[in-house]
């Protein structure tokens, strides 16, 4: 009857989202009066999960799961859920978890609520708060099925430390060849750089920067803050920055602690995608730019003067607070 949680890892290391979903699972388990079992696939240090309240870890190490495969990962979680007789399965909002969750829901005949931002408000009926209309609203959703799949938004519930035994147990799923109808050929991924999905801080810039040659200062600011870089839609449409950096309603969603917008006007479609960020800072020459209505802090000024200053001052700040 334990709550099952999929704790995702990358190159053996748990993602921050893994600890967040473990924290969430612990809260659900408390509400239901049960324990938390995590599923870890090819992860190195499963004991870390104990810090977030995980009681037991089903430790899967399988060569067949070296590359992500939605159906095979879903099958693994399906079998783990059966093993634990789990009625609630928790996943994150990473690209991979969002890919496997619908398949898992079908396997389990489970209702699935995605983009959940808070602990269940009730477990009977099982009710969660999720975002809808691309962050322009919230929606309370009841999951009516016997088994439930909950997808938790990044950075919404946060990390909650708890102690759990994280007792590891080897788990070998039965993976039929028919699951592997999609085979990964190549992966093109920047290494050593924080992704928009995982970042605490995102530094984003728009058409106000005039051209791709001016992104040096954006990257430097991101470096100082340990931030991910992002951009508005026209900037990626113009080819100034890669599509993967496009954030907003039709791009990637952002739910960071701090979002810094430089030379971005704050169109409704842009704001919809980044509104889940906790603190927003805008730097813009135009005091009438709509972004000032959505931001917490603003500087009316020229990015080419403000950003270099901000970089210098932040370096001083970091040196003094190291």
């Amino acid at each position, binding site marked *: 009857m334990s709550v099952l949680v999929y704790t995702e890892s990358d190159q053996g290391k748990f993602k921050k989202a893994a600890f967040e979903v473990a924290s969430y699972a612990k809260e659900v388990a408390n509400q239901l009066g049960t324990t938390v079992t995590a599923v870890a696939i090819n992860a190195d240090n499963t004991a870390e999960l104990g810090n977030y309240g995980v009681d037991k870890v089903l430790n899967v190490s399988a060569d067949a799961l070296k590359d*992500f495969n939605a159906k095979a990962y879903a099958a693994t979680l399906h079998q783990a859920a059966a093993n634990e007789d789990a009625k609630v399965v928790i996943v994150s909002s990473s690209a991979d978890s969002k890919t496997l969750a619908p398949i898992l829901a079908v396997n389990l005949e489970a209702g699935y609520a995605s983009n959940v931002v808070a602990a269940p408000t009730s477990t009977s009926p099982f009710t969660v708060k999720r975002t809808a209309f691309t962050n322009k609203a919230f929606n309370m959703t009841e999951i009516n099925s016997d088994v439930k799949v909950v997808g938790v938004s990044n950075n919404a519930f946060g990390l909650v430390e708890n102690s759990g035994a994280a007792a590891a147990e080897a788990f070998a799923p039965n993976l039929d060849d028919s699951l592997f109808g999609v085979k990964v050929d190549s992966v093109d991924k920047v290494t050593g750089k924080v992704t928009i999905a995982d970042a605490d801080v995102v530094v984003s810039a728009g058409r106000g920067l005039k051209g791709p040659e001016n992104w040096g200062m954006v990257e430097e600011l991101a470096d100082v803050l340990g931030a991910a870089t992002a951009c508005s839609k026209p900037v990626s449409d113009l080819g100034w920055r890669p599509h993967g950096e496009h954030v907003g309603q039709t791009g990637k969603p952002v739910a960071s602690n701090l979002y810094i917008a430089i030379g971005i006007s704050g169109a409704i479609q842009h704001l919809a995608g980044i509104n889940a960020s906790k603190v927003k800072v805008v730097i813009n020459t135009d005091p009438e730019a709509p972004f000032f209505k959505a931001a917490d802090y603003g500087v009316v000024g020229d990015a080419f003067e403000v950003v270099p200053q901000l970089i210098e001052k932040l370096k001083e700040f970091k040196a003094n607070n190291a």
Partner: protein
Amino acid sequence: MKILVCISHVPDTTSKINFTEGDTKFDTNGVQFVINPNDEFGLTRAMWFKEKQGASVDVVNVGGAETEPTLRKALAIGADKAIRVNAEATDGFFVAKQLAAVVKDGGYDLVIAGRESIDYNGGMVPGMLAELTSANFINNCISLEVEGTAATAMREIDGGKETSKTALPLVIAGQKGLVEESDLRIPNMRGIMMARKKPLTVIDAIDTAQETSAVKFEKPAPKGAVKLVDAGNIDELIDLLHNEAKVI
């Protein structure tokens, strides 16, 4: 190749979002509805398959009669025929089961859906549909080529892209990149005229459970006013971010 494009009927991206009936229903008053942006990229990609490689392209929507203008628009862009499953689309699993029945019945080789619809943002229908029809699945798809029954697809992952080899039958959840913004087709007069004569078939929904229900909506709390910092006083900004917002 038989292609089915799933079309979600959603409020235009500039819409003001309000609710009625005690915050239990989306208020459609004064709202313009459009083809879901993620599905628009897929529809244009389907047109390319049709024109360059030969394919039939049908479009489908699960919804009430009010969604028909959106389906007609897809026909005007060039789809051959439209199907509407007559049911209110609330739970993603319910919608996926309706679509699975359409896919099995029509014998489609390739289903192109969107990564998510911009109203409920469920992001679940394409993956569920793939599983229900035993098709291969590519999420967040930003490029797709099909040769015979073999397919090469690229998907966006956290921090990069991944290229895979797969095969039909296939379901993809598309987004920008599948085609570029500048490639998007807009209906022209001739297309609109032709669309009037193209078949739009309405079928009954199959009887299946609603696994989830949206019971209430809420709008985010109104935001406080922005705190402005003088461009010559960046120290103050750093101080506010450190001591007040506590984010650095």
